[in-house]
């Protein structure tokens, strides 16, 4: 909604409307005959009778602009129609089918695009000759490559997405996938590309006509008028000014509007202002808190957070409050854990302490750090500092370790410089030797031996574990009073996780740093922390000593969370027929991926599966556990026929369906729930009545309310989407269901519900599951047979 009220949209609409009005008006009548020569009226300035003046032959400029603009726009539209249609088809085919056709087309395309378009236009005009039709032809050919390229790259982006794989799996033909599933998703980009193409065509026509190579006199076009008027610049500047302005207005109007759609416009809200508004909103909503004054000095706590409220700006409504008045404090050297599901507000709470909330978020409340050094007590009242003042305390008094060691380091800067920044900013700049000595010491402290090599490396040369050690070493460089760790071990494998935790404990003991430890993993928090806070929907549900919370939880939500983390055993409920036949048999399977290099054949570079054997019996839940990148997903795609094995045989007695990991990617975002559930039957040409009835039945089977049928998939939560994905796979009545990490993208409590649903469906439809995951805990309580990679 906001889109249409934006400044850019209104301005663009106004400009475009103005030019369109002029052209449309000119269609019916022009004030004067645009070609009528009147010697008495030569070069008259703008007047009431001739608002745009007259030209060197006494012709009315307004009338000529009306007709000229029409010619220009018609040429632009015709051009983009030719180029757009042909370009879209070529680009779509090249992007969708790939292979040699794609390589050849894109080679030609890229070489054409490398040349300045006006040069090609000149050559084409030189070959075809001048005049309106030839210009359209020349420009139309010219715009094919640029449109083909955009369409191709958009399609290439869509093709690997799971929803395309899903459609393929359900039996949709290639053309159906391309036109029904993919093209609607790139509609917006296509329109924007066309708009830009129209602009370029209008500008190119004007350029050619200006050079005398386009529209020929006495016909008028905007470019033609500019070139005719240029010789009379001193005498009658209006003959040039008005056509030029109209041309610019039209192009600017199209640009402004298409920018709004492509999200390219600067119509983003000012983050500074947005934050101010959010804070004001929060204060007005909770006047009693803002009236309360700063509390008594609590010198025994190193970090005090009082009445912290955080809200995020939303597109349509008032700001959305996500943290509702949280208060806590930490003693020096204390280890405080925050647990909760994603979206519970635990991460934003940590970020707000550092003033590092994302651009659309802001916080109110009191945050202070109190510490003692040789000079006595210091109290840093952080809530009243702006971001600039915060710079003094960030990294010095309070430091942070983030979740993703892969992306949290700058990829194009050597480790030495990144670490040294921690020491060299601010007033005190240590000497080079001192920096080197301190960095080496810090790295040794986190058990990194090869210090010189590491310091001169780029982050990409280091493993995830090494990077996280570096992050910790960096955060501890200035011996901060408080260290905030936001899921520091979540992205790491189990072994590295252990080492990092041990390291944190050791450093904490040595420097008496207070650690605020945020994790969704209850086990880790239980082990590491003295005290725990349980977050749920932005409030602290329960708080207390770690042992007490985990042993004798008082609140229902805490109990639920603990139950989910320990997990129910689904294998007991699973009905597995004793002594059944073999339904899947894979022998000596090899898989590898290669890449086309120019015209040379495939060269297989990465071996993914080698001599793999698998045997699954009917009714089993066969679990495969492995690390990411171990080839599990490749196997899944082989089993359901999305990939062809390089070597090996697969005997599968029964139809295979598949549920993908990410329900956000595997369902076409343009469609409704019912449409998606019906799609497998629609492909099989099942009559409308029947497929509708069966889809509605499935809606109930997967536990969604009846009135969800017309909802767009984007309105559903992750768990609900995964239900739809499961329902869609079941619609084609498979006997075997390949589940590729079906619950990994979901919150723990939702995970339980989906696993329960899968158990129920398994029993009802007598399915065989091949369940693939990296999560051994989930596997042990769900699969009746487990294979570990």
């Amino acid at each position, binding site marked *: 909604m906001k889109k249409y009220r934006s400044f*850019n949209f209104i*301005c663009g609409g106004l400009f475009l409307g103005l030019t369109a009005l002029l052209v449309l008006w000119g269609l019916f009548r022009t004030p004067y005959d645009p070609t009528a020569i009147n010697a008495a009226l030569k070069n008259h300035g703008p007047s009431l009778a001739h608002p745009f003046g007259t030209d060197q032959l006494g012709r009315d400029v307004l009338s000529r602009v009306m007709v000229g603009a029409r010619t220009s726009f018609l040429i632009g539209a015709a051009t983009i129609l030719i180029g757009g249609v042909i370009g879209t088809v070529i680009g779509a085919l090249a992007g969708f089918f790939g292979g040699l056709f794609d390589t050849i087309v894109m080679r030609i395309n890229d*070489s054409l695009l*490398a*040349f*300045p378009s*006006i*040069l090609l236009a*000149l*050559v084409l*005009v*030189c*070959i075809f000759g001048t005049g309106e039709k030839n210009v359209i032809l020349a420009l139309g050919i010219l715009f094919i490559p640029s449109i083909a390229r955009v369409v191709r790259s958009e399609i290439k982006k869509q093709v690997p997405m799971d929803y395309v794989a899903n459609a393929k799996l359900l039996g949709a033909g290639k053309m159906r996938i391309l036109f029904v599933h993919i093209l609607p998703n790139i509609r917006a980009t296509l329109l924007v590309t066309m708009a830009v193409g129209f602009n370029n065509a209008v*500008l190119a026509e*004007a*350029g050619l006509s*200006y*050079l*005398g*190579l386009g529209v020929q006199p006495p016909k008028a076009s905007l*470019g033609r008028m*500019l070139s005719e008027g*240029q010789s009379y*610049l*001193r005498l009658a*500047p209006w003959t*040039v000014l008005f056509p*030029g302005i109209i*041309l*610019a207005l039209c*192009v600017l109007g199209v*640009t*402004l509007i298409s920018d709004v759609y492509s999200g*390219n416009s*600067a119509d983003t*809200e*000012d*983050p*500074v*202002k947005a934050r101010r508004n959010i804070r004001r909103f929060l204060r007005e909503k909770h006047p009693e808190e803002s009236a309360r004054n700063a509390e008594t000095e609590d010198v025994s706590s190193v970090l005090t957070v009082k009445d912290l409220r955080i809200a995020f700006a939303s597109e349509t409504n008032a700001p959305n409050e996500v943290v509702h008045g949280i208060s806590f404090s930490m003693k020096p050297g204390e280890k405080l854990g925050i647990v909760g599901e994603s979206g519970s507000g635990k991460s934003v709470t940590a970020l707000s302490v*550092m003033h590092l909330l994302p651009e659309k978020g802001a916080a109110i409340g009191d945050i202070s750090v109190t510490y003692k050094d040789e000079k006595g007590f210091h109290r840093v009242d952080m809530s009243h500092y702006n971001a*600039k003042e*915060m*710079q*003094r305390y*960030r*990294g010095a008094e309070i*430091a*942070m370790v*983030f979740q993703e060691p892969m*992306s*949290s*380091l*700058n*990829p*194009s800067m050597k480790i030495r410089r990144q670490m040294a920044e921690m020491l060299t*900013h601010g007033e005190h700049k240590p000497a080079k030797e001192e920096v080197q000595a301190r960095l080496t010491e810090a790295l040794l402290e986190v058990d990194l031996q090869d210090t010189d090599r590491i310091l001169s490396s*780029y982050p990409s040369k280091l493993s995830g574990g090494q990077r996280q050690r570096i*992050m910790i070493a*960096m955060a501890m460089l200035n011996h901060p009073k408080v260290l905030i760790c936001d899921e520091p071990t979540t992205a790491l494998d189990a072994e590295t996780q252990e080492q990092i935790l041990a390291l944190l404990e050791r450093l904490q003991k040595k420097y008496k740093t207070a650690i605020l430890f945020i994790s969704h993993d209850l086990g880790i928090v239980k082990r590491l922390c003295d005290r725990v806070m349980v977050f749920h929907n932005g409030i602290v549900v329960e708080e207390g000593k770690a042992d007490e919370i985990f042993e004798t939880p008082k609140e229902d939500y805490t109990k639920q969370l603990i139950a989910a983390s320990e997990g129910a055993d689904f294998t007991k409920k699973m009905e597995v027929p004793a002594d059944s036949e073999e339904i899947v048999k894979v022998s000596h399977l090899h898989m590898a991926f290669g890449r086309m290099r120019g015209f040379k054949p495939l060269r297989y570079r990465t071996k993914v599966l080698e001599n793999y054997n698998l045997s699954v019996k009917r009714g089993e839940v066969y679990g495969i556990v492995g690390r990411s990148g171990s080839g599990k997903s490749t196997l899944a795609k082989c089993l359901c026929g999305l990939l062809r094995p390089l070597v090996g045989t697969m005997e599968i007695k029964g139809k295979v369906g598949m549920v993908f990991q990410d329900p956000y990617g595997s369902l076409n975002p343009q469609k409704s729930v019912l449409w998606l559930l019906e799609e497998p039957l629609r492909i099989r040409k099942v009559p409308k009545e029947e497929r509708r009835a069966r889809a509605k039945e499935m809606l109930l089977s997967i536990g969604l309310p009846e009135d969800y049928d017309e909802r767009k998939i984007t309105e559903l939560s992750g768990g609900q989407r995964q239900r739809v994905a499961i329902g869609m796979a079941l619609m084609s009545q498979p006997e075997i269901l390949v589940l590729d990490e079906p619950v990994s993208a979901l919150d723990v409590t939702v995970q339980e519900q989906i696993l329960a649903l899968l158990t129920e469906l398994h029993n009802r439809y007598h399915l065989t599951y091949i369940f693939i995951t990296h999560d051994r805990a989930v596997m042990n309580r769900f699969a009746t047979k487990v294979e570990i990679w």
Partner: protein
Amino acid sequence: MKAARKILSMAAAVVVLSFVTFLAFAILPGDAAQARLGTDATPEQVEALREEMGLNDNVLVRYGRWVKGVLHGDLGTSIRFRCPVSDLFKQMLPNTLLLAGVAFAIILVLSFPLGMLYARYPGSVGDRFGVFVNQTFMAIPGFFLGIVVSVVLGIGLKLFIPGAFVSYDEGLGACLAYLFFPALSIALPKVAMTVRFLRSALLTEKQKDYVRTARSKGIGEWEIIGKHLMPNALAASVTFLGVIVSEIVAGSIVIEQVFGVNGLGRLLVSSVANRDYDVVQALVLYIGIVVIVLNGVIESLVQKGGETE
């Protein structure tokens, strides 16, 4: 090894380009003999001249002859000026190169600070206004901007005399002083393009996790933009600058016309209008080679940059 392959593929591209260019003009209905004699000539006269010019030979033979000529510095003869094309080149190429150089310098000097400024305060009033101005400049066709520059800076403020171009051999200083204005007209829309590109590249980088890490160290925003964002955004910008160079070539073709600069662009346009094929052919080949070489260089620069990561 890599460099050799690069050079080889560039050479192949040049050969293909030269053949396609040649072919495009060889299959034209109205050929050079017709063009030279005009429409009044009898078919017999035209045929005689065709024979004399060797136009009746096989296309490949003619191509071979043309390539041989080009390699010896013979680019053909201009029908209109009745002189070797290479002479025209010698006279006009420096003017065009100077124009492109000045335009490129203006683009570099203006767009980098502006791009950083916009990325520092996204969404602010200044940024919105700036982006709007940017879009306006991108919407104005180069030649219209040239006309406006002539009217405002030339006729109005009398900073230069439109049309009174001084060629490089008549005085380099005066030539550059005049070229500043056409170069400005070429540069401003490209500055707008570059600023827009840089702004969005920087803002994309700004969303990445490593920026949060940098902030958590207590580094100031300007330092983050200069030291952290810029190097990452620059990798993408190198390719973009290739586009800009090719845009400058395109822009100069039209702008030379507006300001009466005696350069290759103007020569190209008038030759197209007069169907002076030898000149057009030579110019297309020349610009094509420039584009191929520049793109090749930029590509290898990007690859080198990629290796350090």
